[in-house]
């Protein structure tokens, strides 16, 4: 049952991804000022969306874990933190590739770049905690607290870094309500790419979540077996 769903999702992701690649490289017109480099935008923005969504789910599952308990919430948070980290890395890499020809530098301390880097470091810390501390309900609670506090810290980080400096183009929506995507084909390509990356996220999450669930069940069985063996030894 789960396998059929996973396969269907995989097929959907594949189709959408091919469509997104076709639209990015063939269908969409080249942007007038930035040229061919601008096409990386159709991967950059969906990666950012997936990373933020994943980090959001980490916080939400952390709240549910502390509130309701249940290993399932911890597994969900862990899976999302890992996937979010991958996509956050991709955001930084694609951004850097774009910035070199456009801004003339690989990296600059712009507000969105800085915020993304801080996020990357925050969830890197989260994953380090999980990797170094091992598996136990205690570590799961620690991770839930870190996930919640990190997400709560994000608005303050955004405001402080924005006041600090900003030069990132407001591509999607500016304060005047305009957006930088002049051609309707650009909007269409972005939407398809967003759908493709969202499907990819869902598919990866399903696989990773299932494997973490299996691991948790295995750990529970091992505990049960140890208890049974200890009881048998007492006889």
């Amino acid at each position: 049952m789960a396998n059929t769903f996973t396969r269907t999702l995989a097929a959907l992701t594949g189709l959408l991804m091919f469509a997104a690649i076709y639209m990015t490289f063939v269908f969409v017109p080249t942007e007038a000022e930035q040229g061919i480099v601008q096409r990386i935008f159709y991967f950059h923005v969906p990666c950012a969306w997936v990373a933020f969504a994943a980090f959001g789910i980490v916080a939400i599952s952390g709240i549910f874990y502390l509130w309701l308990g249940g290993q399932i919430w911890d597994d969900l948070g862990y899976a999302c933190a890992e996937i979010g980290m991958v996509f956050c890395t991709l955001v930084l890499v694609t951004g850097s590739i774009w910035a070199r020809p456009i801004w003339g530098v690989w990296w600059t301390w712009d507000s969105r770049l800085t915020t993304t880097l801080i996020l990357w470091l925050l969830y890197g810390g989260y994953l380090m905690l999980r990797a170094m501390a091992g598996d136990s309900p205690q570590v799961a609670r620690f991770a839930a607290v870190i996930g919640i506090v990190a997400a709560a810290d994000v608005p303050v980080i955004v405001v402080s870094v924005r006041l600090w400096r900003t030069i990132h183009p407001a591509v999607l929506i500016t304060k005047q309500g305009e957006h930088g995507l002049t051609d309707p084909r650009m909007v269409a390509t972005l939407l398809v790419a967003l759908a493709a990356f969202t499907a990819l996220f869902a598919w990866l999450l399903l696989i990773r979540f299932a494997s973490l669930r299996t691991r948790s069940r295995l750990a529970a069985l091992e505990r049960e077996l140890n208890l049974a063996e200890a009881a048998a030894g007492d006889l």
Partner: protein
Amino acid sequence: MRARPIAPIIFLRILAPERADPPMAGFAAVLRKDLTLELRGGESTLALVALSILILIVMVFALDPAGGAADAPIAAGALWVAMIFAGMAGAARTVLAERDNGCIRALYLSPLDRGALFLAKLAAASIFMIVAEAAVVLMLVLFFNLDFDLRLARMLPALALGLIGFAALATLLAAISGRVHAGDLLMPLLAVPMYVPALIAGVKASAAALGGAPWSAMGQWLRIMIAFDVLFVAAGFILFEHLLDED
């Protein structure tokens, strides 16, 4: 038995009265215990002061400032570097000290409110850090050739807010780092990214103050620090109980 210093004891009595109403009683008891422990040969404050001054000296070697008001931004930066890296080692001590001899378990078994326990630890860490910061500011004036004038006083709100925020963050994270494998490595990895907003705001506000800028130039930065402090004190107050639970 050693003679008990009178002045600090009076200070303790005022700050943490022995007979307080129930909600405050636990807070006062833990804070009184931590401060008494520190006054009777505790090493946290001394280590904090020494480490802060050492970091300040390292910053002077690294940046080689000419000194004077022109170097105010550098001085402010050095001050905050000293504060967070010394604080990392010092502010967490109030929680980590409970780990020895399993005291943390005794605290957990006591009917003490977890939020009150967090606030007591936060208050103790803040007091240790205030002492360290006073020493650092004094050394900063000497090393960077600043003047003892109103500019230093203007830096106080930013310092106080940054210190409380850092103590809250360090107390919260110490409950984690004290109880996982290689936790002392994890502490800075988690604390520094989380402290970024207060760090940016603190450096900017301190540089403005040392540079002689008016209060209005600091307003937006102080507001960020207040938001950060409220967030982390509230988060610690609410979530500390989940960090203390044992299985």
